[in-house]
């Protein structure tokens, strides 16, 4: 057993083990001490993804293939594989799960046992999506992830929860239908769904041949992109996203925006780009969806009446940036997309944690009932400003560097117009963020909010932790850029 194999198997077994051990205890004990079990699972994930990355980097291999209970070398068997970019997403899953547990300690009360079990199965589903090496297993783990989300949203059984969950379920199943149909069409062509067999399929297809299988190949690409775009929640397919984020408990919203729509949506598009990036329309359609999403998401965010809805539409807009970076198809584009995924996780989780603090202390998230909380909640106001600066891409935050990387990638790929639009759209994101900050924190304190106090305990810890990550990454980014330069990517 090497360190790498322990790390790799841990991604699959650790969540299952936590669920098994957690359910051995009696209900009252489990409910009281859920933070230790779920926190341990999340911490293990953070530590092993960091350790695994360094060990793999030291050994100089490209990837590490393993099976859960079987030998990955068997002919025709499905297997898991760990490789470079996956580690960053595994780290994000661990980090978001950790923050969500810290917030859930305050916001979730009666459903803590269900929350812990579902969180661990959700982590398992997302790890599975990141580790598998064929499209069908990707679908299966995507379904696991989706089902945990539906139940976690509907778990609190209010009218809004059930409504948000039902809308998410219907659109998510529509995307599953799209993706599975695409999988079937691709299988008609190749007879196998492994990434290694599918890669480069595009170069063997001639566009104008008119044969049934070639037509079906292009139909499959369209279906794959729209399926994963629904899961990401970018503009033509965004209708479920604000409803689901608003209705879910804040601890669940953090999971949805921080990890689920990146792993289930954007990672799927990364796989599509890796396999079929050489077919020109794929990159172009991602760029089109991305640019529309950036602008319309920001415009819709300006006029929302609810704190979480503003943040949700901001998510739509930021996903557009990630898609724009991916659409270049270059290594720098992929690096920029991953960098923005990470900084988006940090600042969007901060905003949702602040939402939990506001909900707990002020009792409402309707913007018309909030105002002037700067003096009562100084830490929350400060972390919120840092998160806004990062969203709008202003130095010295992580968001600035990842947006710079996106613009550089677009410029390098030869589309300066898209780069300019991405730059100018940053002004739109400052517009809705300034509105949010002004209504909630600045101005006169409302008389009914005079008794509000600062958040405390684990919510405050989560706010500070995420802000340290945003600022720390912002200050460390020049070194990362130097590493990229030394690696010949920049």
């Amino acid at each position: 057993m090497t360190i790498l194999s322990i790390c790799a198997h841990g991604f699959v077994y650790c969540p299952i083990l936590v669920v098994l051990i957690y359910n051995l205890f009696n209900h009252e004990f489990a409910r009281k001490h859920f933070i230790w079990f779920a926190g341990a699972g999340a911490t293990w994930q953070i530590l092993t993804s960091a350790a695994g990355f360094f060990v793999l980097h030291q050994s100089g291999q490209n990837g590490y293939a393993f099976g859960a209970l079987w030998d990955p070398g068997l002919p025709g068997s499905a297997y898991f594989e760990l490789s470079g970019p996956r580690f960053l997403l595994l780290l994000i899953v661990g980090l978001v799960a950790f923050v969500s547990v810290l917030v859930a300690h305050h916001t979730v009360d009666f459903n803590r046992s269900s929350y812990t079990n579902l969180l661990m199965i959700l982590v398992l589903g997302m790890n599975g999506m990141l580790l598998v090496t064929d499209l069908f297993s990707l679908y299966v783990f995507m379904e696991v992830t989706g089902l945990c989300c539906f139940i976690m949203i509907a778990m609190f059984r209010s009218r809004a929860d059930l409504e948000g969950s039902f809308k998410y379920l219907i659109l998510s199943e529509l995307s599953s239908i799209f993706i599975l149909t695409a999988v079937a069409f691709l299988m008609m062509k190749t007879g196998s769904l492994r990434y290694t067999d599918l890669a480069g399929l595009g170069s063997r297809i001639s566009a104008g041949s008119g044969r049934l299988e070639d037509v079906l190949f292009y139909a499959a690409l369209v279906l794959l992109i729209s399926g994963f775009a629904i899961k990401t929640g970018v503009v033509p397919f965004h209708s479920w996203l604000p409803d689901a984020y608003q209705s879910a408990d804040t601890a669940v919203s953090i999971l949805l925006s921080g990890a689920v729509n990146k792993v289930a949506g954007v990672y799927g598009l990364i796989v599509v780009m890796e396999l079929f990036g050489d077919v020109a329309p794929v990159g172009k359609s991602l760029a089109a969806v991305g640019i529309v999403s950036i602008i319309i998401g920001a415009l819709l965010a300006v006029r929302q009446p609810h704190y979480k809805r503003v943040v949700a539409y901001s998510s739509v807009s930021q996903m557009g940036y990630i898609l724009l970076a991916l659409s270049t198809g270059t290594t720098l584009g992929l690096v920029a997309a991953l960098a923005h995924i990470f900084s988006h996780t940090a600042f969007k989780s901060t905003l949702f944690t602040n939402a939990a603090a506001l909900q707990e202390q002020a009792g409402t998230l309707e913007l018309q009932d909030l105002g002037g909380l700067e003096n009562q909640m100084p830490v929350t106001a400060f972390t919120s400003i840092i998160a806004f600066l990062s969203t709008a891409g202003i130095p010295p935050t992580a968001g600035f560097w990842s947006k710079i990387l996106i613009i550089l990638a677009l410029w390098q790929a030869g589309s300066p117009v898209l780069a300019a639009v991405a730059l100018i759209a940053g002004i739109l994101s400052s517009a809705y963020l300034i509105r949010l900050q002004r209504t909630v924190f600045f101005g006169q304190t409302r008389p009914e909010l005079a008794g509000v106090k600062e958040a405390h305990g684990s919510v405050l810890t989560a706010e500070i932790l995420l802000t340290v990550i945003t600022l720390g990454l912002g200050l460390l980014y020049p070194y990362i850029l130097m590493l990229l330069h030394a690696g010949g990517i920049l």
Partner: protein
Amino acid sequence: MNLVTVLLIIGLLMIFAGCWCLMRTYHLLKITIGIEVAMKAVTLFLVLAGRISGSLALSETFVITVMVAEAIVAVVGTGTAVGLFRKYGSMDVRNLKQLKG
């Protein structure tokens, strides 16, 4: 027209019927049924893919896995619909007006 084309057309019609059901009905259970009909069409496509590419055993395992997944989705969807029925006393989708912005 050979068998493959006929089955493809039948599958596409079933998906179209499912999506039509999603758009045109206002009943929560009918919407869930629409999703299920479209999923059945997808399993048909998977069997067809196995037949065309000659790996029928692989596609059979896929179909069985998809059946399990969609059964669980149907259970969760119906459960949510029942929860909504208990809150509103009807299954009409036009009641869902809590989330607006």
